[in-house]
């Protein structure tokens, strides 16, 4: 028996399920998921889209509705979390779903910020999922045009100092208080595309911020609400836009209006630094916290030659011996551990189980990394004493209050296949209760890693 089926299921996938057939051709099983990937799975499609949510929230904008608005945000968030987790637990294309998680974390927005709470789910459904098996450039454009990102990184507040609005305000009111907000421009360069310290300067950030002025949201109830654009949709406000031309990273952009920043984004999407940045993150996710340079190089080359065709990169990962090391290469994040525990114990419905609360207690509330950098993808962030204790307590709680009828002695070899160690096998066989045995399985060294 080789390690490959277990690696395909647990390292590339989201964890084996009790009834999973071990894939006979692990690579073929993974490649096939690229082809049969469903960008709008039922559970996700059932959640409200951005336009629906914007309309609902627009209806509770008055100060006296504050409580109703907060409730609506929270409930929307909870429903989206439960749907995302349940889909991850149920999906037959777990490698593809892992990639959704990877990209959602790469283009992270964070739910604790104001109205973003309500839109984390629709953002992923509309800007990430449709492009996971497409081109990086298309995902980048969808993400930066999405109102959740525009709001999260303060783009609606950014006004060109030489824009029509700023000039008029200076003339009529004598005030020069409207200006740039660089947040979105900086994070696009630092986090979404080129990567930190990859050669861009503060001048590039400022110029890009000027190019982005006018990118905004069609807010229901606002004075300039446009009826021909979906509620909460992207709009370009010409009156806030800093006139062209712009020079970024040595290249001059003569486009006007919305197209200026779009042209910059298209160039960033295929820049060699972007290729390296994405290659490094993908390699880290599948080949270990300190990924081998050989793999990063091959991924970067594939990114460049394919102009950011993502399935081309995934095929490099699937074919890379670096990703198939027999020893576990990653310590699972709380989210990964939770999903693999739920899959491993054959859950198909949640009943009273709240994934939202469970993840929060484990220290990784979904879509709430607290920073546009997303969750850290290294063991140093997650393998901590208290976190470990919480996992042990959570595993026990999961088994006690959300019981199943599985025998941990039979389940362990099914889930861990060849990676099941004698020590863990004996600990489970020696457990005094089924619950203890299940708990030990879920917190075993080989189950905590992938």
């Amino acid at each position, binding site marked *: 028996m080789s390690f490959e089926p277990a690696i395909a299921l647990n390292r590339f996938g989201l964890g084996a399920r009790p009834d999973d057939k071990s894939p006979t051709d692990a690579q073929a099983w993974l490649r096939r998921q690229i082809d049969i990937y469903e960008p709008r799975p039922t559970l996700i499609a059932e959640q409200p889209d951005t336009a629906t949510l914007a309309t609902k929230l627009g209806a509770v904008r008055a100060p006296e509705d504050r409580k109703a608005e907060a409730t609506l945000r929270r409930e929307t968030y909870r429903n989206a979390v439960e749907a995302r987790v349940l889909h991850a637990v149920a999906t037959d294309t777990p490698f593809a779903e892992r990639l959704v998680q990877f990209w959602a974390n790469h283009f992270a927005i964070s739910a604790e910020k104001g109205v973003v709470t309500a839109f984390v789910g629709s953002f992923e459904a509309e800007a990430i999922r449709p492009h996971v098996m497409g081109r990086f450039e298309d995902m980048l454009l969808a993400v930066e045009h999405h109102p959740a990102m525009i709001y999260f990184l303060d783009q609606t507040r950014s006004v060109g100092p030489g824009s029509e609005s700023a000039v008029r305000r200076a003339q009529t009111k004598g005030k020069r208080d409207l200006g740039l907000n660089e947040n979105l421009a900086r994070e696009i360069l630092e986090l979404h595309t080129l990567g930190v310290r990859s050669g861009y300067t503060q001048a590039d950030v400022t110029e890009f911020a000027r190019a982005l002025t006018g990118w905004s949201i069609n807010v229901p109830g606002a004075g300039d609400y446009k009826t021909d654009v979906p509620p909460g949709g992207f709009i370009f406000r010409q009156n806030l836009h800093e006139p062209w031309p712009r020079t970024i990273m040595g290249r001059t952009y003569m486009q006007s209006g919305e197209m200026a920043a779009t042209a910059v984004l298209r160039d960033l999407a295929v820049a060699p630094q972007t290729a390296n940045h994405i290659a490094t993150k993908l390699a880290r996710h599948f080949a270990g916290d300190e990924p081998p340079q050989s793999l990063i190089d091959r991924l970067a080359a594939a990114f460049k030659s394919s102009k950011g065709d993502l399935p081309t990169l995934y095929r490099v990962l699937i074919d890379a011996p670096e990703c198939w090391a027999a020893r576990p290469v990653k310590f699972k994040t709380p989210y990964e551990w939770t999903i693999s525990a739920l899959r491993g114990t054959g859950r198909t419905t949640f009943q009273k189980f709240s994934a939202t609360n469970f993840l929060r207690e484990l220290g990784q509330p979904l879509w709430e990394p607290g920073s546009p950098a997303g969750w850290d993808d290294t063991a140093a962030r997650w393998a901590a004493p208290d976190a470990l204790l919480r996992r042990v307590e959570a595993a026990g709680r999961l088994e006690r209050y959300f019981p199943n009828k599985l025998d941990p*002695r039979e389940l362990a070899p099914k889930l861990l296949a060849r990676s099941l160690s004698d020590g863990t096998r004996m600990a489970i066989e020696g457990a005094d209760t089924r619950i203890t045995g299940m708990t030990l399985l879920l917190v075993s060294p080989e189950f905590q890693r992938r």
Partner: protein
Amino acid sequence: MNKLDRRKFLSLAAATSTLAFAPRIAFAAAAETDRRFIFIIQRGAADGLEIAPPVGDPDYARIRPALAHDAADVIKLDATFGLHASLVETAQMYQAGEVLLAHAIASPYRDRSHFDGQNVMECGGTAPYSLRDGWMNRLAGLLPKTRTPPTAFAPTVPMALRGSQRVTSYAPSKLPGAKDDLLGRVALLYQYDPQLQSLWASALEARGLAGEDASDKASITIGKLAATFMKKADGPRLAMIETNGWDTHNQQKARSERLLSGLDAMLASLRDNLGPVWAQTTVLVATEFGRTAAANGTGGTDHGTASLALLAGGAVKGGRMIADWPGLAPKALYENRDLKPTNGLDALIAGAAAESFALDPVRVTATLFPDGLKTKPMSGLIRV
């Protein structure tokens, strides 16, 4: 202290059992019963030699020198047996004739897997997974229905209570003894993983969990909870309480003190909170199997065979030990390692259940243990 010849007691009891109860059978099923029956399960294989150490047995100190108690350190019961010093309240009940001990007792199961052993003990079969429901559930079928059905004071319904009869469960927030035991098991699980081992040690230190002693409090709470339900006129007549952590492969001395102190507190809590209903109550305490007669290399004992069961309650004809004591001499041990079973746990349960509810012991035995008993059900256990 009762000095009854144990062998004689057993044979006498067996001979008189059927006759003594024959006249009551006809009325049993129709009448509402005031009796209560509580099963406290000790999951993990509790060590009978720790609960009631045979300090008078000449081989006792020899076979487990590291774990043996001095005769002076236990609560003396008779020339052979003492009770563990943590069982203060239990000893008082014993003196008051409310606790009956049954030593060298085992279910028909003769292997050493916890899961399988618990399945046999809870289902009432003779082999693991030979029956699909639990003996307590089948016992419920012989009793008149109450408004609150048989209740497990546990997060889920244990196997012994599962089956076609309606039952319920009521979860306390903490299970007594579970925490210590699980933390120890996780430490063992991580012993060859440098990263996790060191994290785990730091975690326990930081939370001050090493040596935490919360078992008494949790035990008192659960005893009170169960008593509150059971003393109601329309409350459950059958209940089950789970205790965990009896699998003392290491640190048996310290862990036994906590475990038995918890059990003692739970029994006292049931007695005190049941009030007058205590007189109508039978509490069965039993485990899936016993532990090795000798100590192992880590200050504990490994999975064995015979252990000890006890009946407590105002309804119990207690103050005595039932034991056909096999002794701990090398030749007397089961498979050269374990206390040899000379009493059947199924015979004790069948007898205690039948007498508690004044049911025909033959019918009770056939219902609870459909695969049959090797001996007759015990009798003379409960006041009628």
